[in-house]
């Protein structure tokens, strides 16, 4: 029995390596193969991937749909901007630490209110609370720069000064930095969802009453998941700020939260890597849609409606279906 299990574990690890290895090689080689445009788009995809990975700890694993993740992403981005403006910090590591700290504090504050509810109520509460941050960023323009936002210069990585050429810096140095942080985040999230804590979250998702009966403290677990999820969004926000060069209220507004949800559903929130796939696909989709027409919202909205109507399990759900068909040909 246990031998069987280890066999199965080895097999799934092998299978993971089979597709993960080429992806890793492609990601490592990307800046040298494709131009800076694609490298930068890829980076946005990786950054959003971290945020959506965090978001999916709530939706996919805990069964809570947050419509307010822009708050924690934005908190991360603005923390970086504030650290630059008011404390003259330039170290990316300090940015990441600061952003995690602030997004944890904010998600703890909001989470205490939100985790008392589930389903639709949870959704609109997270949405409504995230708008508080947006309105503050918007109204306190002398602190936050208002709609103009705050400039974020190129940071120093691991104590080394950035390359003088900004494009060069972003497409090479910063790309690998983002890739490294991304990899760490994926591993951490993998460990979390496969830990007893992760299993408890899934138990809560599947049956709240039973989970409570076997001694899981539901609210506390949900709150921890909420905070972890917020911290991931904060990391993503911190990485995003130097990439974008500007922290603007656009990432605090709730429609950006909607985009995070969109990414998770596009990739498939029932799978671990679905959010990452969705973030990549959405970033490319949006980049091309915006370039293609001013009515990109119309296009993306239609995609979303069709998606939830026809393909509710997203890209990964479709892939699984195809794999199953190939394995069992009729």
């Amino acid at each position, binding site marked *: 029995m246990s031998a069987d299990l280890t066999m199965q574990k080895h097999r799934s690890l092998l299978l993971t390596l089979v597709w993960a290895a080429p992806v890793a090689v492609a990601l490592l080689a990307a800046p040298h193969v494709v131009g800076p445009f694609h490298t930068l788009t890829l980076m946005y995809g990786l950054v959003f991937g971290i945020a959506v990975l965090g978001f999916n700890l709530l939706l996919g694993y805990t069964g809570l749909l947050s419509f307010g993740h822009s708050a924690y992403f934005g908190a991360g981005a603005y923390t970086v901007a504030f650290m630059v403006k008011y404390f003259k910090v330039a170290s990316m590591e300090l940015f990441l630490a600061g952003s995690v700290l602030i997004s944890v504090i904010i998600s703890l504050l909001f989470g205490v209110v939100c985790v*008392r509810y589930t*389903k639709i109520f949870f959704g609109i*509460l997270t949405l409504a609370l995230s708008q508080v941050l947006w309105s503050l960023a918007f109204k306190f323009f002398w602190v936050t720069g208002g709609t103009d936002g705050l400039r974020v210069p190129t940071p120093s990585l691991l104590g080394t000064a950035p390359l003088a050429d900004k494009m060069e810096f972003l497409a090479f140095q910063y790309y690998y930095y983002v890739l490294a942080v991304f990899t760490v985040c994926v591993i951490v999230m993998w460990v979390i969802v496969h830990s007893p804590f992760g299993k408890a979250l899934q138990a809560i998702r599947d049956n709240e009453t039973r989970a409570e009966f076997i001694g899981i403290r539901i609210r506390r677990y949900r709150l921890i998941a909420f905070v972890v999820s917020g911290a991931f969004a904060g990391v993503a926000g911190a990485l995003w700020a130097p990439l974008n060069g500007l922290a603007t209220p656009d990432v605090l507004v709730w429609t950006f939260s909607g985009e995070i949800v969109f990414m998770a559903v596009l990739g498939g929130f029932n799978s671990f890597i679905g959010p990452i796939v969705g973030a990549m696909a959405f970033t490319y989709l949006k980049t091309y849609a915006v370039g293609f027409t001013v009515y990109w919202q119309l296009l993306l*909205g239609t995609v*979303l409606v069709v998606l939830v*109507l026809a393909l*509710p399990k997203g890209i990964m759900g479709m892939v699984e279906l195809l794999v199953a068909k190939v394995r069992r040909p009729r």
Partner: protein
Amino acid sequence: MEFLVIHGLNALLYSSVLFLIAGGLSLIYGVMRIINLAHGNLYAIGAFVTAWTIGAAANAGAPNAVLLLLLPAGAFAAAAVGAILEPTLLRPFYKRPEEYQLLVTFGLLMILEDLIDRVWGPDPLSAGRVYENFGSITISGARYPAYNLAVIAVGIIAALFLWAFIYRTRFGVVLRATSQNMRMASALGVNVNRIYIQAFTIGCFMAGLGGAIVVPGQSAVLGMGVDALILAFVVVVIGGLGSLEGAFAGALIVGFVREAGVALFPEIELAVLYLIAAIVLFVRPAGLFGRA
């Protein structure tokens, strides 16, 4: 004294419009248990249609009385959009998890936002002539636009009418029965599909009416729907989702706090509103009038 009168009336004005938007949202939730994220866009459609219709009529030289009669055009337009949306887009989602309902209405929000831009363009539209025709009156020494009083009246009349409709008519009984237990109502011969489409249409009509009566006083601009939705959420969170009394009380609270906020603490006005909402939720988790 004048200061208080003016701000008190402004607060009532604001509450009236908020009640129309949030009341529609709450009614729809109460009957069909869905939150329509595109609800604010229906309010915007109401505003744009009315502004556009009145603008066109005014250019054609229509007399003032006709312009006034054209005011509800936006409400009917929003109702028509609702009557089309419910059976085509929302109906397939009632048996699916709530996440998908929120998502499909979010997609709808994106679509409508761009469609409004496409149809009416990015410039603000206004129906200012109706507003000017009402002139102003003097209340205890303060001059106040008479049109704003009319808006307050519309809000109160809409609330009374809706209350009578839901608690005093046969249709209201059927509506409440469906809301309480959809399966039971269906088993007793209620055509649930028809009730749903009617409830959704009424909800959209209210949002559209909110937009229609607001637009003589201020212009219809892109993005107004999204802003309105957020405030409507605060209203229903305070008042209790699915309760019309709650929407009424919530709209009054939000209206007065916002007016005070604009005068006294403009920067943190929205934050104060959410603080109040958070306190209400801690004391009464289902909102002031909500059923747990």
